[in-house]
């Protein structure tokens, strides 16, 4: 019967193909070579040719210098990597080395998934000493370091000169006072003073810290008295006041139907935003006629303090090739490798390569300056919950105007999560 034969034929094709695929996978290398697996989210797009640089230049050089080690790199898209890590922890199928977002490190350190690098690597101290303190601190959890910084970034103020000029403003806002003064002038021209895409830690901590406030105490054990301190409340109040005055768009409180920060800045709907170094190639590609300018984060009573972003490189506790993994980590932190990845938009974490940096991309200068005072977010395994509470509190404050009440309530909830 035709039907039956069709099914048989299809089944045969599938069986043959699957066997061929399986057989192909069973071919092993016969030399004694240690193979380590490296998971990352380096991208392949016009804005950041990270993956090509890794696979065509960086890894080949590592393998040349270390002929007994082979690196198998596995790219993931950024949004999926964390989910992949979670299921792999549950299944015990983690790789040897991971390029982890800095915000994930405490969570997985608590789970025992990442190895304590300060104990495992004999030269940890000297390596760590060469990196930015803020970036290094993102690896710290309960007395140990669970990784080394790999690439870093921070947020600076990006502004549209034309938008400012149309309101008669000749220099970008550099202080909280400037912001308050510029807002009504810009509003009169139908331009928002400042826009951001949310109210989480990444968004509001620069304001809180520059305002002289903080989310927690210095040992990250208490939020009450800090998140709702007068200085923090005043800093958040700045945002609340600006929002109420119509100087900040609803995008910041979660309205996904509002114009995005990138489009808004380039088309002069927004005068200023806070963003990172990746915006330069993005703006060049998307809005070639827009000349992007930068300045430090507006300074308040606490100075100009921004938030540290980036990725750390970690070794998994379950890795069976720890020596080789450490060798790779060492290499990725070398000046040569760090400079190579800088060409692909990855800001180095080493303080001693800054001279080459500005030769590679002149715009790195402002980020380097901002990084000197930038701070990491709270290194807690419960950071996702804390971030959500903080974000909801600030958005509620902006919408309702009850800043103190919102921050009081948030501080109390966060206390419970910091224990």
């Amino acid at each position, binding site marked *: 019967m035709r039907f039956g034969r069709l099914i048989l034929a299809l089944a045969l094709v599938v069986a043959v193909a699957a066997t061929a695929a399986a057989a192909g996978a069973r071919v092993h290398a016969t030399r004694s070579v240690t193979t380590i697996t490296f998971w990352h989210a380096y991208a392949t797009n016009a804005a950041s040719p990270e993956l090509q640089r890794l696979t065509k230049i960086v890894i080949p050089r590592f393998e040349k210098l270390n002929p007994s080690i082979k690196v198998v790199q596995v790219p993931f898209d950024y949004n999926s990597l*964390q*989910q992949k890590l*979670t299921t792999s*922890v*549950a*299944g*015990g199928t983690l790789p040897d080395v991971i390029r982890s977002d800095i915000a994930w490190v405490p*969570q997985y350190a608590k*789970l*025992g*998934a990442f190895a304590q690098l300060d104990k495992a690597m004999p030269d940890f101290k000297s390596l760590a000493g060469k990196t930015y303190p803020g970036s290094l601190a993102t690896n710290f959890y309960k007395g140990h370091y669970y990784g080394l910084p790999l690439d870093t970034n921070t947020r600076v103020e990006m502004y549209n000169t034309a938008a400012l000029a149309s309101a008669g403003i000749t220099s970008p806002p550099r202080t909280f006072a400037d912001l308050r003064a510029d807002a009504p002038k810009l509003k009169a021209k139908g331009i928002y003073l400042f826009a951001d895409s949310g109210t989480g830690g990444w968004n509001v901590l620069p304001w809180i810290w520059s305002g002289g406030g903080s989310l927690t105490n210095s040992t990250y054990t208490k939020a009450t008295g800090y998140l709702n301190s007068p200085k923090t409340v005043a800093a958040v109040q700045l945002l609340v006041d600006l929002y109420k005055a119509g100087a900040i768009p*609803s995008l910041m*409180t*979660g*309205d*996904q*139907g*509002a*114009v995005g920060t990138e489009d808004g800045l380039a088309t002069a709907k927004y005068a200023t935003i806070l963003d990172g170094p990746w915006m330069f190639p993005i703006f060049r590609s998307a809005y070639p006629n827009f000349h992007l300018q930068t300045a430090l984060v507006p300074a308040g009573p606490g100075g100009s303090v921004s938030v540290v972003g980036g990725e750390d490189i970690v070794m998994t506790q379950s890795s069976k090739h720890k020596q080789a993994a450490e060798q790779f980590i060492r290499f990725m932190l070398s000046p040569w490798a760090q400079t190579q990845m800088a060409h692909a938009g990855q800001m180095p974490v080493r303080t001693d390569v800054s001279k080459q940096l500005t030769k590679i991309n002149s715009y790195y200068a402002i980020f380097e300056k901002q990084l000197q005072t930038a701070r990491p977010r709270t290194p807690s395994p*419960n950071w*996702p*919950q804390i971030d*959500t509470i903080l974000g*909801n509190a600030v*958005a*509620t404050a902006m*919408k309702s105007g009850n800043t103190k009440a919102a921050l009081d309530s948030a501080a109390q909830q966060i206390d419970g999560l910091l224990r």
Partner: protein
Amino acid sequence: MLWAYAFAAPGFVLFALVILYPVARAFQISLYNWSIVPGSASTWLGLHNYGRALHDPIFWRSLVNTGFYMAVTTPAQIVLGLGAAVLLDARIPARGLFRALFYLPVVTSWVVVSLLFRYLFMTDGGLVNWLTGQHVDWLGGRWTALATISILGVWKGIGWSMVIFLAALQGVPVELKEAAIVDGAGPWARFRAVSLPAIRPVVAFVTIMLVIGGFNVFTSVFLITGGGPLDETQVLLTYMYRQAFTFLDFGYGASLSFILTLIVFVLSLAQLRLFRRPGEGTA
């Protein structure tokens, strides 16, 4: 009747292994403060997670939102899908092409269409506001955002129910339709008297599937509003995803999914009862 078991066995064994066993394990997870690290001890909580859900205002809000989405998208997809199937169940030119075009949204990736709908419903510069001349802040408010997501759900799902209804309409005996024409019945009367009763079990099936699907809405909400602003558009699965995969609280996430399952189960039983033909036995 060994044959009966022989026919059911291969499929059912696979099903039991790959679905039922994990369901049981997931239920077990919901009873613990489950630690994802293999080999480490998890704290027994009993039904504590379920109690926690019942006291969680965001859980209730997400339940209402999910219910709204389901109640809006299910009838719309049935009516429009059936309508499309009826239109296509005829000898018209380019019939196959039309069918493929109606099925196209079903196969287009959720990522692409969610993004597109976000752009279509933008407050300034969105096509919808431009066409209607209004300045509605679609994605900024709870019900307008849910409406947007529901429109996307309906648009994407019409082709699915259309395909099933088409297959069902093929099964309506031609003689019955011809007899109705001889009796002088117009097309609408023929449809109501002949086709509709004949495809009743299929309508029941589609309704149940759409209700289940409606309760399981996830990707569109995740990509369009992310559950925001301020958790106003959370649906059960986006809330569950955040609990399980962002907060790593798998026990609580599992309990949320079982509450969802229970609700869907009860609704499905109710529907089966509703659609049962008089005199029909169970299942």
